[in-house]
């Protein structure tokens, strides 16, 4: 896809980090992420899905609830959580759990908007809950940069393919 600097990486044992630059001030970005009438216009996933439920009580301790629906099949998927920190326009932190979760426990989502004079550098860090996560926190200092970047995986895959060809 063209000219976007979207980056996704698995970081450490249990984090997933996504970042991208947007051509808008941080206030607008913050609102687009936290005002229901704006959120339901874009947070839809693949074509054919709508967002019949989008409720957001934007304050610390306030809850939010999303439900998506695939109109063709009637499939529904819901999730929600609670705000832990709200600091417009720089940051918000919220818990997150799916109704039918496919991973154990919930997750903590930290979203930051860094205003760079008209454009905004957006970053979301998902911290997942698991034993592996706890082990990681205890066993490995995060600042060591335990980054499993996409590049690193690719390097290994290439090395592996070469080895297989030898």
């Amino acid at each position: 896809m063209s000219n976007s600097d979207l980056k996704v990486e698995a970081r450490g044992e249990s984090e997933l980090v996504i970042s991208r630059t947007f051509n808008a001030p941080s206030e607008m970005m913050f609102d687009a992420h936290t005002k229901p009438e704006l959120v339901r216009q874009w947070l839809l996933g693949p074509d054919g899905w709508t967002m019949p439920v989008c409720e957001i009580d934007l304050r610390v301790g306030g809850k939010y609830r999303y439900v998506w629906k695939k109109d063709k099949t009637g499939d529904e998927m819901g999730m929600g959580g609670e705000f832990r920190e709200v600091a417009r326009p720089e940051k918000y932190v919220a818990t997150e759990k799916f109704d039918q979760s496919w991973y154990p426990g919930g997750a903590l989502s930290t979203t930051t908007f860094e205003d760079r004079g008209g454009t905004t550098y957006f970053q979301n860090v998902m911290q997942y809950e698991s034993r592996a996560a706890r082990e990681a926190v205890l066993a490995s200092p995060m600042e060591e940069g335990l980054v499993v970047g996409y590049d690193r995986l690719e390097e290994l895959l290439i090395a592996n393919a070469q080895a297989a060809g030898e």
Partner: protein
Amino acid sequence: MVILAVATPAHSKRLDATFAALADPTRRAILARLAKGEATVNDLVKPFNISQPAISKHLKVLERAGLITKDIDKQRRPRRIEAAPMAEANAWLEKYREFWEVNYKRLDDLLSAMKTEDTIGRKKNE
């Protein structure tokens, strides 16, 4: 932040194990070494300059994640790398990325509409 990916519990468990195994720099280095050819525990002790039990522990994590296998028929059970789980982890990240790019393209459009409205609003107030 949301993931609208459909993964079976077994599938996601395997991915968790893969990512957890890859999170450690020594284990990544061991994988890079095994990518060049099979090696026994002893083969690995020397270049990595860590104890045999420590190497064995790392190998166990990699084995559990399915990233390597050991050849139990051969003497000293050499380990070799398995490509499939890595490819799966790779594909998962790419899917996730694609999913968000679709959403963010829509967000780009919304933001530019918001900016236009903002400008019109300001002009009206002038």
